[in-house]
Structures are given as C-alpha cells and as structure tokens.
C-alpha cells in the first residue's frame, strides 16, 4: 500500500464529485482546495470547459479563466451585425455567471507558459500555478502572409472582422458609408481557417443589405480555394437566385498583397481587384499563447492533440481546444465543435485527477447554421466518433447532412441554438 501524498490526496478529494456520486453533495467546501486548472481564452471552448469542470466536480476544482475581453462576443451570428439586422449587443454575453459559480475570471492576457514549473505568467508578472492547463486561444491572424497588410494603418482600413467585436462594427460602418454602386470584395484564405461557411454567409448578409439599401452595388467573393469550401450548393443557389446580379463568385483567387492606399487586392495569378470596401480574411494559425507554450506541432500552424483528452501530443498536462487544434477529418473549426471539444477535455481532466484513463469512446457532433437572409437559414451537421485504431474522430457513415434549402423555421432554430449554447457555456 503506497502512502498518499497530501497533494495527491487533494487531487483525489477534488475529483470526489466524479467518483463519489451521491455523496458528493456532503463534500462541498467553501474554499476550493481541489486541483488547479488554468484556462486561457473564454470563447466557445474555454468558457465551456470552465463551466463543465466546475459543474462536474461539484464546484471543487480551483479554476482560473483568463480572458482578454470584458464580455463574450459571439463569432456565430456576427455576420448579421455586418448585414445590419442585429446589433453587437445582441451577440454579447457577460461573464458574470461564471464568476458567480466560483470560477476566477481574470481579464488579462496570458504572457507565457512554463510547462516544467506548470505556471502561466499574466501581465503583472504573477505566475499562476496549474495542475492542468487548457489553452483555447482561438486564432492568431497572420497579417505577415499578406504583403502590405503589416502596418496598423493598413489593418485599420482593410478589416478582417474574423474576431467578433470592434472590427465587426467597423466593417458595418464601412458598408454604411459606401455609396450605392460600390464594390464590396471579400478575400478568403486557403482552408483550413476558422468557420468554413462564414465567408460565404457574410457575402449573403452583405448582399441582403445591398439588395435593400444599395441595389446597384456588388459583392465579389474572391476565394483562395478552388471551390466553395462549405454548403456549396446552398450558397450557389442563393447567389444565382436571391442575389443574382449582386454576388459574383471567383475561385482560385490566392491573395498575395494589398495596397491600402488604392484599396487594391493582388493575387498570385488572377488580375488585381479594386474595391470600395475590401474585407481580407488572412491565413490563420493557433492563438499566440499556443506557439509560446510549444504546443503547435502541425505545419507551424496548428496543435495536434490526443483526441481522447485533447491533451497536446507534445507537452503533457496542456490541453488545447477549438480552432487552435489540428482537426480530425471533416471536423470543422466551429464554435459548436469547440464546445464539444471542451466537454471531452473536461471529462478527461476529471478522470485524470481521479487516476483514471479518459473515456475511450467519446462521441461528439457539429451543428452549423448559416443565414442566407436575415431570417432564412440553412444548416450542415455531423456526428463524430472516436476510432480506436486510427486514434482520431471519424464521422459516422450515413449520419449528418445539409438542409434542402433555406427556411425561416431553421432561422428560429439558429437563434434558439445561439441562446442555448451561450447558456451552456456562460450560465
């Protein structure tokens, strides 16, 4: 019989909610003496992970959630703000409920990770210790991959609006200021990038706005890919019917540089495009803290994880969620998927604290709605199960699919999805 060290005992006690079942209610303690989990990034992945670790441990874990922004602003639905049918306040949710749960929400930026000492440095140079670290930092935008987009001046003029917040509102303002008869051009990077159908949905939302307010204007979709990456038939139908004469789709437009002075985009082969509003979504990689922590392992861009736990394949006790990971086949970089990653990781972290292996048979799903108009919506969905031989998630054959066409009923479901997933991560 081995002696249990105090630290290990605390770990066991901390995970008692997991192991003790009906007894867990008796073990609730006002001070959190359980194992420490630090989570960086309170988006769809990180906030969900914090909440589920708290809920599934019956409030025993000592959880710190580090987030740069004072409130959550959703990327899903943010194209409606750009189209003008929603305001930023409609897609903004407070972190207060997580604080009330007893999760320590710190509005700060993680500076560095020391995986040997197991600490995270925050901006006041304080080192926060962790037993497990969860990185859910979203994406870093690679401005240096587009020549001419390096300066703050260029970035203030040519927006990405690929992180919801001030840029979302700024892009809306640019569209409002644009004269009728103008051109809005959106440049899409090569896949994989955050939210595969997002750029095409944005084209629809801008076209929806133009059709009503500026009917002589054009939307140019300049795709760095050889074809529409997601929901192709559904988007093409909308562009050829609802938005005929407004939207023009051009494949194989691989952006190389921009000139902010003349609002011109230049491509590797295709001709230059000049626009009144130029929206460039540059290539991306895992959020900066992932690079610093040394968990970027694929193509110098994404983090490979063990899909049973979302623990980095390289650095122990660091889990990576959401858009930062090197995805499994047919797994999109979506908010819904990040929420699902978070729950698999939370379960695995609690198992680890209890000395147990992760659940060997996780199953997760994705549901993604895209707005064609302000209320007519299409979806794509999928179910992914862990393949023990290939050690990755695979979609279940015969499952998943697309809408036959846009409907207002799916519009209602899309808003209900948003309400429920925001509640699932932030209440």
């Amino acid at each position, binding site marked *: 019989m081995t002696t249990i060290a105090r630290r290990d*005992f605390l770990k*066991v*006690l901390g*995970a*008692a909610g*997991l*192991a*003790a*079942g009906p*007894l867990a209610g*008796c*073990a609730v303690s006002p001070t959190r003496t359980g194992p420490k989990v630090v989570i960086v990034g309170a988006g769809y992945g990180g906030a969900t992970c914090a*909440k*589920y670790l708290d*809920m*599934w441990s019956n409030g025993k874990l000592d959880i710190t959630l580090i987030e740069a922004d004072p409130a959550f602003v959703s990327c899903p639905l943010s194209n409606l703000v750009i189209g003008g049918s929603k305001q930023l306040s409609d897609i903004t949710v407070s972190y207060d409920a997580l604080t009330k749960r007893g999760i320590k929400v710190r509005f700060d930026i993680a500076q560095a990770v020391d995986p040997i000492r197991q600490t995270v440095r925050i901006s006041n140079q304080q080192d926060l210790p962790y037993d497990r670290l969860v990185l859910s930092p979203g994406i870093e935008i690679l401005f240096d991959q587009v020549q001419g987009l390096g300066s703050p001046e260029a970035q203030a003029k040519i927006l990405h609006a690929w992180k919801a917040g001030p840029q979302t509102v700024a892009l809306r303002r640019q569209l409002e200021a644009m004269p009728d008869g103008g051109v809005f051009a959106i440049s899409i990077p090569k896949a994989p990038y955050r939210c595969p159908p997002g750029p095409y949905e944005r084209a629809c939302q801008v076209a929806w706005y133009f059709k009503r307010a500026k009917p002589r204007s054009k939307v140019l979709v300049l795709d760095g890919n050889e074809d529409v990456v997601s929901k192709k038939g559904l988007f093409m139908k909308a562009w050829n019917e609802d938005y005929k004469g407004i939207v023009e789709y051009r494949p194989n437009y691989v952006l190389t540089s921009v000139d902010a002075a003349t609002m011109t985009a230049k491509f590797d082969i295709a001709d230059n495009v000049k626009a009144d509003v130029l929206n460039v979504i540059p290539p991306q990689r895992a959020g900066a803290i992932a690079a610093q922590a040394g968990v970027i392992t694929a193509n110098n861009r994404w983090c490979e994880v063990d899909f049973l736990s979302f623990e980095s394949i390289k650095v122990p006790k660091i889990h990576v969620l959401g858009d930062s990971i090197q995805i499994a086949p047919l797994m999109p970089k979506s908010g*819904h998927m990040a*929420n*699902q990653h978070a*729950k*698999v990781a939370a*379960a695995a972290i609690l*198992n680890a604290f*209890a*000395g*147990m*292996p*992760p*659940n*060997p*048979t*996780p*199953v*997760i*799903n994705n*549901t993604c709605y895209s707005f064609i108009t302000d209320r007519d919506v299409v*979806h794509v*969905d*999928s*179910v992914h199960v862990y393949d023990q031989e290939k050690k990755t998630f695979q979609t*279940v054959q*015969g*499952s*998943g*699919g697309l*809408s036959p066409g846009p*409907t207002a*009923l*799916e519009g*209602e*479901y899309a*808003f*209900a*999805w948003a*309400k*429920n*997933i925001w*509640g*699932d991560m932030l*209440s």
Partner: protein
Amino acid sequence: MRSHRRAVVLSLVLVAATSAAQTSDPNLARNIAAGCANCHGTNGVSVGGMPTLAGQPKADLVKKMQDFKAGRTPATIMPQLAKGYSDEQIDLVAGWFAAQKP
C-alpha cells in the same frame, strides 16, 4: 469524521479505478448527453426555442430518437444527427436525461 470521509472517498475512487479497467467510462451516459446541451440546454434544460429533454420519460426519448433515426419523423437536424448514434448510446442518453430535473 474527516478520516472517515477520506476512507469513503478513497474506496470509491478504487471502485471507479477498477471499473475504468473495463472498456466503458463510468460517466459515459453523462458525457454523450453533454453533446446534446449545445441546442437543448445544459443537462437537457432548454433556455428556450428547443425542447427540454431533462425529466422526459426514457421510453418517450428512445422512441423519438428511433423515429428520427428511421426517418419516421420528418425534421431538419435530428434525423441526420440521430443516425450518428447507436441504439446503445440512445438508450444510455435517454436514461440519463430521464433522471435529470427539468
């Protein structure tokens, strides 16, 4: 009291560790059900616009999922998602939601 609690906790952890040696996770039902929460609310308690699953009779939930899976109930998302879950998984999840407070 404290040492008693330690003993209870440790013995339960040992029980959990023993069962972990088998193929299925002791929280499998909870874990699969968590995948439904994105749309149906945490623990199956919807905050609006989607049906609450918590506290629904298990047999009803199984029948609904099997009807979606077999294409007997036309709908948007659910017939496509239901096909991704095995009969055993549907049974586990339905039982778990039935036991939750609505």
